[in-house]
């Protein structure tokens, strides 16, 4: 042993040092995640399976009561209210994410074609609105869309809305608010994808008998797909759980899942029901992410699209 120069005890000291090193680097992050993610989630999970007490607080015994209520079964039999809220959330997420893609795609492309020194300024212009508080911006939209405002009058004279109704409050106002709010989250990843693109590839596609439309579809679009999927995740997940925008712009009929959950906790109404709603959102989000991964893999030609 003496000949090897490294004694077993020295080697094990090295391993100890390494595992200590690991402990010091991983511990802060792990502690953070355990305290602020694992424990609260476990608590939420527990609450969802408890019984609602007199002041809306959870009580024993364990039951599936909250999930039954969430599914619409109440004292007066089944009502579709919660189902509508869920469907409305999904619909709003789908429509607003789709609209964000439609609006952001040309913006991102346009910025990528600008001169190099203008690009940071253009990107800044996209991002700057989000430096203002979301609540204040949403109040701004209330003022723009309320009955009697020029926009509402225009929509009224074109016959889109009934007289004196205004564009706000409505589901339309919520969609608009969501699109406006999440636009930068789509523009930035798309821009990153466009910027990496070699414009010579578009010319190469045309040189290889692709019409401009097919050149876009076969040479450009697939290469922006990672950016697009990243943008969709960044927009769709927060949009699905959005609270402020439907609360302010939606009125009574524009409620989304986020509002349902918030109301159960805030008003002291029903913690277990709120927890069950939160879990439902979590599950829906995971299903959505999983689906995106599958789509990304298929469209990316088996290439891993990191989300």
């Amino acid at each position, binding site marked *: 042993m003496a000949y090897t120069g490294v004694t077993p005890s020295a080697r094990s000291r090295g391993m100890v040092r390494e595992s200590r090193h690991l402990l010091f680097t991983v511990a802060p992050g792990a502690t953070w995640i355990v305290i602020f993610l694992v424990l609260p989630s476990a608590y939420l999970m527990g609450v969802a399976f408890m019984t609602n007490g007199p002041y809306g607080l959870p009580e024993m015994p364990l039951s599936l009561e909250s999930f039954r209520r969430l599914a619409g079964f109440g004292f007066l039999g089944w009502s579709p209210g919660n189902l509508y809220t869920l469907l409305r959330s999904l619909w709003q997420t789908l429509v607003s994410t789709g609209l964000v893609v439609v609006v952001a795609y040309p913006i991102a492309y346009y910025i990528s074609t600008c001169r190099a020194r203008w690009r940071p300024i253009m990107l800044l212009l996209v991002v700057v609105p989000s430096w203002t508080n979301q609540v204040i911006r949403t109040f701004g939209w209330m003022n723009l869309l309320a009955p009697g405002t020029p926009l509402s009058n225009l929509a009224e004279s074109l016959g889109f809305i009934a007289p004196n109704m205004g564009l706000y409050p409505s589901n339309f106002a919520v969609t608009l608010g969501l699109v406006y709010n999440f636009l930068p989250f789509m523009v930035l990843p798309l821009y990153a994808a466009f910027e990496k693109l*070699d414009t*010579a*590839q578009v*010319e*190469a*596609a*045309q*040189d*290889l*008998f*692709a*019409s*401009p439309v*097919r*050149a876009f579809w*076969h*040479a450009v679009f*697939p*290469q922006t*797909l990672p950016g697009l999927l990243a943008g969709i995740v960044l927009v769709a997940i927060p949009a699905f759980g959005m609270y402020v925008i439907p609360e302010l712009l939606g009125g009574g009929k524009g409620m989304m899942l986020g509002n349902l959950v918030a109301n159960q906790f805030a008003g002291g109404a029903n913690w277990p029901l709120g927890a069950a709603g939160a879990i439902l959102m979590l599950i829906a989000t995971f299903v959505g992410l999983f689906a995106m991964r599958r789509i990304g893999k298929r469209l*990316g*030609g088996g*290439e891993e699209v990191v989300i």
Partner: protein
Amino acid sequence: MSDTIATEATESPGARPAGETTQAEATREASSIEMKGLHKRFGRDTVALDGVDLTIEPGEFFTLLGPSGCGKTTLLRILAGLEEADDGRLAIGGRDITEVPPHKRSVNTVFQSYALFPHLSVRENLAFGLKMRGMSPARREARVAKIAEFIQLGDLVDRRIDQLSGGQRQRIALARALVNEPDVLLLDEPLSALDAGLRSQLQVELLRVQKRLGMTFVFVTHDQQEAMVMSDRIAVLNGGVIQQVGPPRQVYEHPVNAFVARFMGHDNLYPITARDGDRLTTSLGELTAEEAGQGELLLIRPETLDLLPGEVAGENHLPAVVSERLYRGSHAEYRLEIGASTLQATLNNRGRHLPEVGDRVTVSVAPEDLVTLSE
């Protein structure tokens, strides 16, 4: 032309956009290119092409040579249809294609950056043009296999582009264009990104491919050595104007003006101060030329000079002092002082005496090697 890429002589007529020459024709007969009065301007001040008239013969390896900004790439892009000429006409194989968009031209390009599609495999890159033309997957597959074998990269077809070396990418880019069997192949400085060794290897390969296929190649480069090695004919461009068109020897040995001479690597240019028949007076002294032409500049090519030791009297003998010698093994490059003028000479190393720096020598040049040209 028995040596075509595809074995099938006939193609289904439905697979091609209307109005194009058939594939069989394209491989059997190479196409000519005619350019008449091509003008192109960028913005208000930049003139890229200022009236280009040029005819490229079928099956020719034709090179557009010039410094950056001379218009050579613009001309190539106009041939590809990626740029539209402001004025002038363009015909390939006798058919006017001035207004035909790029995707409807039977012309393919090897791009300087290769422009391979990173989201597609090598196989999908090679099949791209055939797919866009609507060829069935089975026939595409056969053609791709054939071309991959032709360029000896058959084992790479399932790789991704980012798994290829520079030389492999270059060859895939070439194959992606060739697989379509175009009337004309355009090459935009295709070797400029490669290191010297690989570059000369691929020059030879490219030349062999062209000779085997008999296809019309239009090659763009700023490297006069490369142009001379590869080309049947060279067009030297400057400021959007063609300066000279001719075979490499003619362009190198008989440049028509000082620009072409300097671009081909000649430095020994001397204004003729007096002329008496074949007797030309320059700052070097008096020299006799044979059929030198009426230009006002005398060109002396370094490799036509001989250096004799000491002072030797005789016709076209000039006394000189060696001020610099670069020994290159196969030859030596000299810088000589003749009065206030300097002269470059190249001497082959054939076991003879190679003068040293400081030696007094006599420069000798044959009258038939002297050429005059205009500024």
